[in-house]
Structure formats: structure tokens, C-alpha cells
């Protein structure tokens, strides 16, 4: 039970709030960026299950514009770590609706799970400061939820690969990457089309990595870092071959990072420097005395 609520320093929450709320603003302009267009042309709108359950209104110019303004304001406040609960809940609900509209046109992307869940769990933690080393189980639960969703994104995509083949392992030996490159042509990918065996190796490495990804939840320190770097490399390769970046998931890897060490690290660097400067000055003083005495 306590696995779900590890004690983690509040500072990590403060850093994640700043980074993720600012990332949401980036996301609204760079990734899920057609929500306001859909308000102007709701013709292709096909509401997803969650929108139907909540009976959300059809996107219009008025409601998507209000949503946009509310999101920007709440993200900016949330990023400063002021009013963390109010700003946090507003961002969570508003961004969920924003993405729901953005994905209600027959195409759903799978890179937003961790980010959306992160926004829903962050407001369950109270006020946090960047340097606060107080360890908290409430903070730990929020962090753990984000970590689980990051890992689930990989593990469940391996499950989906089995399911689509009728629960058989045919995906890694298939021509799926060739198919993907033909449909998203660009130079690196097109060069690789000549070497299908490289693509098969990549498919095997990808699916094995995805299946083993839950191990990362139990790794510590350097080994966990290696695990994270493997998947960040995986995204770099996907970006190079297919122009698929998955940044909304990548940014959530920071839930694994000991962000709470940033402030102490800066402080110790500064105090080291101060100490060195003090020493230098003392040294200077002695030399001056010796010269004066000579």
C-alpha cells in the first residue's frame, strides 16, 4: 500500500507545477492547437465518450475562446505555485476539455495520458516551494500516479500490438515501420526503406522495451536514469524516422527526476564559490602583508 505513497520532497511538486503548466501553454499552441478552429467549424465534431457522459456543449467560437483565456490565465498562475489548488483544478478540467475537443474529429493521439493525469493529481497536493525538502506522502502519491501513467503509455502500447494481431506476437516481424515511413515520407525514413532488417531490429527493440518498461518503476538511481534515457532515445529515433515526438509524455518523465535537488545544488555551488572567494581574498591579504613586510 505504501508503494503508492512514497515520501517525496515537496520541492519536486513545485518544479513539476511550473514546468507542466508552462508546457500546457506550449501544447495548446504547438500540439493540440486546432481546438479553436474546431470552435469555428464544428462540422466534423464527433464527441468522445467522456464528452458525451459529461454532456459537454459543442465547441463554438465563444466557448473555445473562453476556454483558451481561462487556460492561459490558470496556467500562468499555477506555474508560479500560487493558489496551487484552485489554479490546478481549473487547468485540469479546462485542459481535459481542450484536448477532448481537439481529438473529437476521428483521430485520437495517445501521447497525452500522463500529462492529463498529472494535471489532475497535482492539485491534490498543497502549497509547495522550490527549495522545500519536507518529504510528503501526498506529494509522493501524485508523483507515483504520473510515473505509472508514463510507464503505462509504453506497456499498454505493447499490449495494443498484441491485441490488434488477435493476441499474437506478429508486430515486430511485420512491415509496420515500412508502412509508416511510406505514409510519412522524409529523408531519414526513406533511406531506411532500403534496409528492412534495420527496421525489424528497431521494432523488436521497441516492443521488448515497452514490455519491460514497468521494471523502471522499481529501479533506483542510476539504473532508473538508464531506463529513462532508453525511452528518451526511443522517442528521438521515432522523431528522426517518423516525425512523431511524443513530447507531452516525454516531459512527464521529469516526475522520475530528483528535481528537489536543484535548489540545494545551486546553494552548495554558490557557497563553494563564496568560500573560494573568501580564501582567495585571504591569500591576497597575506601576500600583500608579506610584500609590505619585505
Amino acid at each position: 500500500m505504501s508503494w503508492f505513497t512514497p515520501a517525496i520532497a515537496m520541492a519536486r511538486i513545485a518544479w513539476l507545477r511550473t514546468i507542466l503548466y508552462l508546457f500546457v501553454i506550449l501544447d495548446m499552441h504547438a500540439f493540440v492547437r486546432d481546438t479553436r478552429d474546431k470552435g469555428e467549424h464544428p462540422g466534423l465534431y464527433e464527441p468522445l465518450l467522456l464528452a458525451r457522459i459529461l454532456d459537454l456543449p459543442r465547441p463554438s467560437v465563444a466557448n473555445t475562446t473562453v476556454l483558451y483565456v481561462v487556460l492561459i490565465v490558470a496556467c500562468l498562475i499555477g506555474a508560479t505555485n500560487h493558489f496551487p489548488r484552485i489554479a490546478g483544478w481549473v487547468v485540469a478540467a479546462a485542459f481535459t476539455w481542450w484536448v477532448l475537443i481537439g481529438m473529437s474529429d476521428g483521430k485520437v493521439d495517445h501521447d497525452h495520458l500522463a500529462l492529463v493525469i498529472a494535471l489532475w493529481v497535482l492539485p491534490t497536493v498543497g502549497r509547495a516551494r522550490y527549495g522545500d525538502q519536507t518529504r510528503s506522502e501526498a506529494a509522493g502519491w501524485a508523483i507515483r500516479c504520473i510515473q505509472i501513467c508514463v510507464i503505462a503509455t509504453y506497456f499498454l502500447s505493447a499490449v495494443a500490438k498484441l491485441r490488434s494481431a488477435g493476441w499474437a506476437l506478429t508486430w515486430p516481424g511485420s512491415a509496420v515501420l515500412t508502412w509508416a515511413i511510406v505514409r510519412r515520407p522524409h529523408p531519414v525514413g526513406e533511406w531506411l526503406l532500403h534496409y528492412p532488417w534495420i527496421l525489424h531490429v528497431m521494432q523488436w527493440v521497441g516492443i521488448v522495451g515497452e514490455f519491460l518498461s514497468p521494471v523502471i518503476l522499481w529501479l533506483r538511481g542510476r539504473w532508473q536514469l538508464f531506463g529513462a534515457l532508453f525511452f528518451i532515445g526511443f522517442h528521438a529515433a521515432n522523431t528522426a524516422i517518423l516525425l512523431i515526438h511524443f513530447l507531452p509524455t516525454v516531459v512527464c518523465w521529469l516526475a522520475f527526476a530528483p528535481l528537489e535537488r536543484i535548489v540545494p545544488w545551486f546553494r552548495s555551488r554558490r557557497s563553494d564559490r563564496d568560500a573560494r572567494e573568501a580564501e582567495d581574498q585571504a591569500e591576497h591579504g597575506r601576500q600583500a602583508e608579506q610584500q609590505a613586510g619585505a
Partner: protein
Amino acid sequence: MVRVGRLGRTVRVLVAVAGIGLLINGSVRATDDAWPFGPMSQYAMSVPDDAKIDYTRISAQTDAGTTVDVPLNIEGAGVARAEIEARSGEIVKDPSLLQQVADGWARKHPDQPKYVKLELIRDTTQLVKGRVEGPPASQVLATWTVTR
């Protein structure tokens, strides 16, 4: 260290377990409709070594006399390729749906040549033993003369 109370811990564990349950349910049985708890099914299919790979595009004749591929993204014609692919059946039945592509382009790029005729084209690439064999074959699925 700040601990959570017994109730707080129980609620948190239950919420997390319920969330994991929803995710598993989504991956095992649901479709994209269940977002954010749907299956992670992008690029999840096994493509056979002799597959035909379809790529749908829209070609436009402009009032400047040129023929161009319509940029199917938000900045281009205001509509994504995935949306066109998902609705190509509807467009074949009712080519007037292509009018909104011309309208979208004209609205976003008022100073560029206008589209006068649009063709929905499917390029089919044949795989042989997992390799691309020859250039794609093109087939016009629908044609629409733009109205103003």
C-alpha cells in the same frame, strides 16, 4: 515527513487502482472513444509483407494554372490528413465536402492562388516481401470543381 491519514491513504490507493483498472480495461476491450483510458493503438497493427499501402492526398489546380498538393494540416488548408483519410468514403459519396478544403485554404492564405479544382487521390504502394516495389499507383477517388 508529512504522512497522509488512514482515510487519505485509502482513498488515494483506491483511486490509483481504479485508474489502473480503467487503463487495463481500455487496452483490452475499449476503443479510442474511451480517451484518455483507451488503447494505445497508434501504429499497433501488424502490416503484412505483401501489403498495399494507401496514402490519401488532395491535388489542386489553382487559378494561377499550377497543380499542387494541398498541405493537409492546420496551417495549410485547416484540415488534417487523418481527418480526410477517416472521411474519404463520405467524400467519395459527396465530393462537395471538398469545398471546405478550398474555403479553408482561401481563408488562411488570402494572398495565394485560389484552388479551382480539387481531386482526392489515393496513392497505393505495393510491398513485395516487405520491400517497397516500384513507384505508387495513383487513383482519383473524387473530383470537385470549386464554387465561390
